[in-house]
């Protein structure tokens, strides 16, 4: 990890105002609240957590869909969080975002060829022949025959549409892609094909992924490092294998304990975590996990634990 990070977040925060019926602000939802992390070129960083933990807001803030409330977003050494939108657009070539179903964002009235040329027309000055060359390379990489260029989206299967959606993002040759729940809602066998495709594309185009998911098994099989989020904060960050083998944060431990393991003892027999995550509008004082934590002490209510270095990884717990 001698190279500088491709993406670096420093104390990034995104708060949403809560307003009452008269439009007066009555509070804040602290969706992302002081997140610092770095993503190195060529790696896949997994971002996991349960719904409402702020992982999608984090991805969208990095993309510029939400403006950061505080903190820095550095892409390739340059601060991009506060750029005017005219300059921000230039970054879009290098930094792309994939929604849950990239196939759904195709225009039903455009042939595939039209959809694939559009980003190149907007963002590059390539000639028609160069564009065709580029589109052809990408189409091969996502495993679609050239004859599909003349089809409309409805003539393709769901899986093929998904491939076209990905090809559309790849034509610009981005350096980093944020994948937001790319496999949720898929059957396991289809999910396996999609993960395989992501992996081969990463090797072909030297991509860096941020992989946002709530599915721990998927993250485990695709990511080298993972960051676990709870209520807008990172609670644990480290090498995937180490985190899965020996989680240090009590929340990570509960989260991993809840994942069914086929062939083993039923995990639900021993599952101890009680209750549900608190409302993000009203986060507990001190450590945010303390209301459900089995190790809770007095200090947890008064002092928010910092994300500190523990045996080669970072954990935000007083007792890690």
């Amino acid at each position, binding site marked *: 990890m001698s190279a500088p990070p491709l993406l670096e977040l420093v104390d990034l925060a995104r708060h949403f105002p809560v307003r009452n019926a008269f439009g007066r602000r009555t509070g804040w939802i602290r969706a992302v609240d002081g997140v610092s992390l770095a993503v190195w070129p060529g790696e896949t960083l997994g971002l996991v957590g349960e719904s409402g933990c702020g992982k999608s807001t984090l991805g969208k803030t990095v993309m510029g869909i939400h403006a950061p409330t505080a903190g820095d977003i550095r892409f390739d050494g340059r601060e991009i969080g506060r750029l005017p939108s005219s300059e921000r657009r230039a970054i879009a070539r290098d930094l792309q975002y994939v929604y849950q179903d990239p196939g759904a964002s195709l225009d039903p009235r455009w042939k595939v060829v039209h959809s694939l040329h559009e980003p190149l027309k907007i963002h590059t000055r390539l000639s028609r022949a160069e564009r065709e060359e580029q589109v052809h390379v990408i189409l091969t990489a996502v495993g679609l025959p050239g004859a599909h260029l003349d089809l409309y989206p409805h003539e393709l299967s769901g899986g093929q549409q998904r491939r076209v959606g990905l090809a559309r993002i790849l034509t610009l040759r981005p350096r980093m892609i944020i994948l937001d729940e790319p496999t949720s809602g898929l059957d396991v066998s289809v999910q396996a094909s999609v993960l395989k495709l992501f992996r081969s594309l990463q090797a072909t185009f030297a991509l860096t992924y941020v992989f946002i998911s709530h599915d721990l098994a998927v993250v485990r*099989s695709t990511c080298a490092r993972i960051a676990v989020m709870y209520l807008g904060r990172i609670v644990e960050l480290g090498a995937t294998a180490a985190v899965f083998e020996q989680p240090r944060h009590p929340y990570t431990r509960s989260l991993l304990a809840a994942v069914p*393991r086929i062939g083993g003892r039923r995990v639900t027999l021993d599952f101890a975590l009680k209750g549900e995550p608190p409302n993000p509008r009203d986060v507990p004082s001190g450590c945010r996990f303390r209301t459900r934590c089995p190790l809770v002490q007095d200090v947890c209510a008064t002092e928010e634990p910092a994300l500190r270095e523990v045996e080669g990884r970072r954990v935000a717990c007083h007792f890690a």
Partner: protein
Amino acid sequence: MSELLSVRGLSVDFLTDGGVAQVLDGISLNVDPGEVVGLVGESGCGKTTLARAILGILPGGAARIRGGEVRFKGTDLLREDPIVVNDRVRGRRITFIPQDTSTSFSPVFPVETQIMDLMKWKSPRAEGDRGQRALSRYPRERHRADRDAVLESLRAVQIPEPARALRRLPHEFSGGQRQRLMIAMALLPCPDLIVADEPTTALDVTIQAQILRLLRELVKERGVSVLFTTHDLGTAHEICDRVVVMYAGQEMEAAPADTFFARPAHPYTRRLLASVPTGTGEIRDIPGDVPSLVAPPAGCRFHPRCDYATPECRAGRPAPRALAPDHEVRCHHPVDAPAGDDG
């Protein structure tokens, strides 16, 4: 005949714009008393259609039952008088837990109104036929007894402060809490069978673990059978005694949960289990696509994607073959090896 529910050769067609889709093709399965049976398969394999056929709530205009029977305690529900089924079976002997709890409650009435409406018709204490009950008011003593039962069951599903919870509107509960309410409502009529259609798919993993544990404890305690449909094999492992796997409207294999996960015999089951991500980082998919149900492949519907397929598989659907007591597979070439031992 010890089984509670026995589906025999059930075939259901759907009329679609593209033609007649053969969504279920000669499905057979059994549920014994007190047993939790998992019905697993990928989306579009027909598991929800089967659940609906058992409950008798297939969409009338589009669905057509081509053949087969659904025997519940000896009576064929498909040929029984629909009024009798509605009065005595559906919602009383067989209840339902849906996947999407947010659309299963009316958003404008408090939970109490909605649960008491259910109890007026489906409470185990409700007597008389439908006409009588429609005319008479809710008898006061029965209302009191039913309300006590409701509070009791909310406590059983661990809803804090049940009496106050009843006054709240559905949106004031979280997704996990609403699913607990659904479980309570499914148990209130004291049914013999609960059909649960992907009840934990929309939940986070820690909430899913809580709900699965709760559901399993409650049904085991009360001796209720459950038919649990899911596409998630991990969930099936957590809750089921026995697993039936479906592919494109046909059942492929039925086995006790231990055998199913340790020594699956059907090539499809083996590929499906192998495609579950593991820690090793190796990813294995099933090549090819799920077939069209309008023009399905002849014989075993998995044969176009199967490594073991022979002309025999195209000629006709394999008859059920018993490999062990309770372990049946519909395949000409069952594999005899531990899971994950083949290519």
